[in-house]
């Protein structure tokens, strides 16, 4: 080492001669952790293929001794309203997303590019509301929906989320950085303010909107709290609510079908994640620092 003429070159040369023990050690630790992290997913999958008798023997085998095929998946789809849950999940998550985008984009544009009286107050309210989770206004919202006779409906499941202050905040950041000169060019070209927003400015913020879409869909597909409060009927239940109810009814006797159901309900988002990892991670961690 001391003979190496160039200090910077020495570690690289050394690493070519010796095995990179540090790297191997890190890999070993990470492999162990990866196994631990994946274990619940593995259990979920493998249990959905095990026969009941095997489940209740006090021995653990890595693979099912007797392969049940898609038996539990078929059972899960035919005997419980899994597909209905998924349909509801899609309707509610997309309905919320569409409303959030339609309301947040104009407001964010006004906050980003217009000067008007009350703008700072509105911005302050948005920032305050950012910190308030759904559990805070839940009681009055429930009473209000009940008074209007709207409980147990898609509308009730969606309405508290029609406004996303997070979307407003995020889009405002994105719109602010849109060049004023292009907006002015559009005004000279004769576009209306509404057309400038939707046809000129919004296309420039597609990445931010896509990231928010991932964030919003994940959040509301997975939400248990609010559906638990306002949804009663089976045919309106979202995947988490349906699974919670279903698991309860089954009371642990049919683990195979339960795990099959869990797999089916978890699969869509996981697939999206695997296919578009970068965008997905960006969307989900958006609440974090950039």
């Amino acid at each position, binding site marked *: 080492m001391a003979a190496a003429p160039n200090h910077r070159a020495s*570690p690289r040369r050394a690493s070519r001669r010796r095995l*990179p023990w540090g*790297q191997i050690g*890190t890999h070993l630790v*990470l492999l162990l*952790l990866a196994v631990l*992290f*994946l274990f*619940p*997913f593995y*259990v*979920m999958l493998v249990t959905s293929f095990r026969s009941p008798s095997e*489940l209740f023997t*006090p*021995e653990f085998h890595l693979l099912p001794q007797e392969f049940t095929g898609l038996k539990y998946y078929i059972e899960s789809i035919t005997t419980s309203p899994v597909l209905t849950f998924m349909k509801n999940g899609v309707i509610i998550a997309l309905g919320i997303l569409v409303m959030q985008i339609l*309301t947040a984009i*104009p*407001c964010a*544009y*006004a906050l980003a590019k217009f*000067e*008007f*009286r009350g703008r700072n107050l509105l911005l302050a309210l*948005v920032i305050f509301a950012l*910190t*308030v989770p759904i*559990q*805070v206004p839940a*009681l*009055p*919202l429930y*009473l*209000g929906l009940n008074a209007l006779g709207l409980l147990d409906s898609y509308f009730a499941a969606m309405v508290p989320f029609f*406004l996303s*202050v997070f979307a*407003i905040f995020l889009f405002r950041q994105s719109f602010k950085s849109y060049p*004023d000169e292009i907006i002015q060019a559009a005004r000279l070209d004769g576009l209306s*303010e509404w057309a400038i927003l939707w046809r000129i400015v919004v296309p420039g913020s597609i990445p931010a909107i896509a990231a928010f879409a991932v964030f919003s869909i*994940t959040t509301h597909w*997975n939400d*248990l709290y609010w559906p638990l*409060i306002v949804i009663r009927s089976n045919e309106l239940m979202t995947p*988490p*609510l349906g*699974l*919670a109810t279903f*698991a309860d009814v089954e009371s642990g006797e049919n683990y195979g079908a*339960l*795990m099959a159901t*869990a797999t089916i*309900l*978890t699969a869509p988002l*996981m697939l999206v*994640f*695997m296919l578009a990892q970068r965008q997905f991670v960006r969307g*989900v*961690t958006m*609440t*974090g*620092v950039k």
Partner: protein
Amino acid sequence: MSVETTGAPRAFALPLRRKRLGAELPGWIAYALAAPSMILLCLLMLLPIAVMLVMSLTNYRFGDLSYAFIGVENYLDLADDRTFWRALSNTFVYVAIVVPGSVALGLALAVMTTGLRRGRKIYQMIFFLPVTATVVAMATVWKYLLHGTIGPFNLVLQSLGLPAIDFFSDPDLALTGLAIINIWSLAGFNMVLFAAGLTAIPSELYDAAEVDGLSEPLDRFFSVTLPLLGPTTLFVIVTSTITAFKVFDTVAVITRGGPRGSTDVLLYTTYLEGFSYFRMGSAAAMTVVFLAIIMVFALLQTWVLDKKVHY
């Protein structure tokens, strides 16, 4: 420079009301753009919070035809309510396990994976996987996984000759069991935040540390990585605290506050009070306490973000 609208100040400055210039956008445009959001903000957020604050001063029960203002009695009752205090302390104990666990694990994962020459992406994907999984679905899996008799975890323990651990039937272990699930689902999220912080550290600093004789990985970690990750770490801690504080799904699916109230957390108690027992007044008071604590965290978060910006 921003687009100007009919600025009210100018209208005041001029004695005579001047004809509007074509260059000035009509003032209503901005209001029209913001109106839908402003209305929803009032209806869905401000009004409900006001109603909840008022309701916390009443003895209103859902379904009752009348109610009375009872001042701060709900709050005084809470101060004497052992269940409430247990829920509060359970929540804080839970936070105290989840935050250090998920932050330390997230940091370790970030440092280890970003230091890899190969395989960094696949590892990060694996550790992020729990973040993407539906909490309720994974809660049912964990419930079975840690089941006292037939759970694979215990079967593995037994096959190694170790005694079985029944997490969710043991009041001393149930909260820890839930915390483990949360650490599992939060560590990958924190890893991504830390990884972003790590890539922002200029590599010249490591070269400089090496030149200064800090060639051991641990030396470099403590002299360069950790100090420069300081602001990120603060942020991750606050964010994790807020997440952990809002624990609800796993409690609702796995333990329902049991055994013997050992996993009764603030949101779950509030939920039961409001939506099972329909005691709206006292549920509102609990929510106010919850909101107050959340606001403290939020202030902390803004403060931390500010610091990060000025770093």
